[in-house]
């Protein structure tokens, strides 16, 4: 098989494949990479905190590689609360066993923010020997022993909606809790499966963290603002603005945050390239940004076009 260089990998990720599944192009690379992994499929632990399971569902929306292939052939998803067969003690045992056996080599994926207020009482992961383990403790413990942590989605990355003002549970992003292991933030609410799997494959293939922006997001997946290349740019240039969400025209005056949101929604779109917010007449909410949701509110903006 032909080798793909880092440069080519990044080029594929940053846009050449607009509109079609990013990983179509990368699938042979992924399978090749993992076939070479000496210990078989790399172990992955997926924990959920102040979450809604939306990022898990988004993961299941992946097309290439499809989810069956991902789960059955590519990674070894040892612990995932929504998908795993076992429960209770047996599940917690797998978690501890995996972390001990693969210390420093497993990948920790976190979905949901970390409620850090009042000692972490607002979210518990499970009960061990009669004592409830808080999610905060679990993230500290399993984050430190991981090869790398991927914070999947806005909540895990930046606190997201549970961390919105007045933040009643003191919820923060994982990178504010895990200090000694690299944390990669995958923005968007939910995370896009291509951004997540592309990052995971890069880490597995090259054994290093991809280049990150100031918010620890992989630059190749959060390359530029959505406004650049927005299909409504023509309206913007001609000064045609929508008066209401859903109208024709640039959505800037109904709250569109495409000028500040870094993501590839305008190229990779969502749900197998079916649609995306701005194409569907809905203003971008900048869910990819640490500012989401407080600084992105009101979602439909403060200004209106007068008749």
């Amino acid at each position, binding site marked *: 098989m032909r080798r793909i260089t880092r440069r080519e990998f990044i080029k594929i990720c940053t846009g050449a494949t607009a509109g079609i599944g990013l990983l179509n192009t990368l699938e042979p690379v992924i399978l090749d990479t993992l076939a070479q992994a000496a210990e078989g499929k790399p172990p992955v632990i997926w924990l959920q905190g102040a979450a809604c399971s*939306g990022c898990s569902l988004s993961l299941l929306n992946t*097309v290439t590689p499809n989810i069956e292939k991902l789960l059955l052939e590519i990674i070894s998803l040892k612990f995932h*609360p929504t998908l795993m067969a076992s429960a209770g003690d047996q599940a917690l045992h797998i978690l501890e066993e995996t972390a001990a056996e693969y210390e420093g080599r497993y990948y920790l994926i976190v979905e949901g923010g970390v409620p850090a207020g009042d000692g972490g009482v607002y979210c518990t992961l499970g009960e061990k020997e009669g004592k409830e383990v808080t999610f905060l403790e679990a993230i500290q413990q399993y984050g430190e022993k991981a090869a790398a942590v991927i914070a999947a989605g806005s909540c895990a990355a930046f606190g997201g909606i549970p961390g919105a003002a007045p933040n009643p549970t003191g919820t923060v992003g994982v990178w504010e809790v895990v200090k000694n292991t690299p944390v990669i933030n995958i923005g968007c609410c939910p995370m896009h499966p291509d951004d997540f799997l592309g990052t995971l494959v890069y880490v597995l293939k090259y054994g290093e963290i991809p280049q990150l922006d100031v918010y620890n997001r992989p630059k190749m997946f959060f390359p530029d603002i959505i406004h650049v290349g927005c299909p409504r740019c023509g309206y913007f240039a001609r000064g045609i603005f929508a008066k209401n969400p859903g109208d024709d025209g640039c959505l800037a005056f109904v709250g569109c945050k495409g000028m500040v949101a870094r993501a590839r929604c305008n190229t990779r779109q969502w749900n197998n390239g079916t649609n995306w917010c701005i194409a569907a007449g809905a203003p971008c909410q900048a869910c990819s940004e640490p500012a989401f949701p407080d600084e992105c509110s009101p979602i439909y903006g403060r200004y209106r076009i007068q008749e």
Partner: protein
Amino acid sequence: MPKVVIDPVTRIEGHLKIEVDVDRGKVIDARSSGTLYRGFETILKGRDPRDSQHLTQRICGVCSIGHAITSARCLDDALGAKVPPNGRIVRNLIQGANFIMSHIFHFYHLAALDYITGPDTAPSVPRVNRDYRLSSGINNRVVRNYVEAFTIRRKAQEMLAVFGGKVPHITTIIPGGVTEKVTQEKVDHFRTILHELSSFVESVYIPDVFSIAEVYKDYWDIGRGCKNALAFGVFPLEDGGGSEGQNLFIKSGVYTNGQFGSLDLEKISEAVKYSRYKDETAEPQPNKLGAYSWIRAPRYEGLPHEAGPLPRMWVNKVAEVFDLGEKAFSVMGRHVARAVECKLVAKAMFDWLNLLKPGEPTHLPCSVPEEGSGMGLWEGPRGCIGHFVEVKDYKIQSYKITASTVWNASPRDDKDEPGPIEKALVGTPVDDLENPIEVARVVRSFDPCMGCSVHLLEMKDSWGRVTSVNI
């Protein structure tokens, strides 16, 4: 007396702990605890009311559509918005797509691993190695369908995104309708996927449910619960009327102590004796003595009521479920009701698609009033959802939420009466205390959604606004 704790209960949405007391091989008492508190009602205060249908979607990534539309209906009411026919129908189609996705996902990916063995790789192993009764032929067939169902549920999401923009967490629902336009191309795209899903539901999903139900016969008697049912109703078939008085495809209704009745919101109460709150207000009290859950205990006429597909099919007297009689209130009854509902909804969606008028508006403009109030009643895949808003100075003054799992997974109330799941667990046989798979089967038959369970009505200060609804 042996106490068995399952924490975390996996293959559900969110954080649930189940604790049962077992005596002579049977559960004699159970406690259900929600173990995540986020405080949505507190976060919503002071925001632009139109943000609520986006923030409330993040309550749950599976039921996000239910919250989006409930919130939009609540705002339709508060803003005095009119929804055009295309807007109403597109909302129904989006919600219908979510029902199909959620029901298939629940049966195969959340529940089925309690009955089948396979695929033989993580995360499907290790499993509880006992009481798998299917013949290898049926087992292998359902395992193959478990794998295929991943693709099917993904396609249901893609169908939803045709009008939803993106999913989970759609952006097209607004007060006054939806932002996406109706074009012939979109209608055809949607219909093509619907054909495939509908055929999967009828020729794969339903036969698989019945194959399992036939072998696990005792589960028609296990998990009866409170046998009270509650439905707010969903899928309006005509325009106007708000949440009150609309003609709905799946109607609202109540079934209490063996009697059918119409929904009267004034009969809803909420107890916090065993919940981690100071009092009926939103103020959390994590270490409250005796409290064991973040969930509150809503009751109808002072009694626990179950919400979900079974209650919906029951109060609508859908023959395939209603004719089961008392057996419908059981683990298998819940699975069958869910599958029957999935088929009914998919079939109706073809008719709704034909009623769309390409090119006609999908939304009408509206604006936030200085003051106002609204109510939205609806059903997500897992059961009833209600949103209630008070607007002051163009901002949210109060926002209250109730949803299916608040009802189903609720703890004991002020009279120490257990919630529906707690009640359904009593009498469940437990053959192996180390591997209480029977308990997990009962709990999962409810399709618990813990994200949707920790929500507040804060009854004392403002329920008075809600008037009697007779539908």
